[in-house]
């Protein structure tokens, strides 16, 4: 890579994304509800797609882009499945907020 703009741009982008990762992870640890955590996982997938894209640009290894596409297409499936779990829990009138004493 010879281009200084790109160098800086990827550097900055990576920094931003890493911070984003960490923020989302913190929310995932905090919760408080399962829905929040699942949302975080979903957000992580989006961030991951971006991270892969930047990585591909930085290394000029565009083969990685397929991974990003796959994530875009299939990554939401985990959210769907977990959402279904929450739905089931709700339909069974179960406590969702784990902070409450059981």
């Amino acid at each position, binding site marked *: 890579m010879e281009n200084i*703009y790109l160098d800086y*741009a990827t550097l900055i982008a990576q920094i*931003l994304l890493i911070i984003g990762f960490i923020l989302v992870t913190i929310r995932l640890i905090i919760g408080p509800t399962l829905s929040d955590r699942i949302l975080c996982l979903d*957000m992580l997938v989006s961030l991951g797609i971006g991270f892969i894209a930047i990585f591909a640009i930085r290394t000029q290894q565009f083969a990685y882009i*397929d991974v990003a*596409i796959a994530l875009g*297409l299939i990554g939401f499936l985990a*959210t*769907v499945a977990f959402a279904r779990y929450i739905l089931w829990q709700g339909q069974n009138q179960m406590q969702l907020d784990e902070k409450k004493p059981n």
Partner: protein
Amino acid sequence: MIIELIIAALIVIGAAFSLIGALGVLRFQDVYVRMHAASKAGTLGAGLLLLGVAVASAELGLITRAIAGVLFLILTTPVSAHLLARASVIAGVKTCDETVVNLIDGKYSENGQTLDSEK
């Protein structure tokens, strides 16, 4: 050079949106509001970054693939947001204290199987 600048802009803006989305996820008060941040900023951020790849690769196959990736993202993100929001409502995940109106409250049947219309 212009191309490089465009790429740089795309990825920095994309990354910035992603970060903002992440920040929103961390900062916002309840899961529904957080979802706004995740679905919008997340999609746009990742989409812009993929477009960046499309431009950077300058290869037809990669450009079409990157655009397909963006399309996939746009197709799937609202679906998962909808499903998660719906499930959360049915599961009784509380809205935050600032919430001013909740018209869906009480519209679901006891077991969450059916949803009545607002009349």
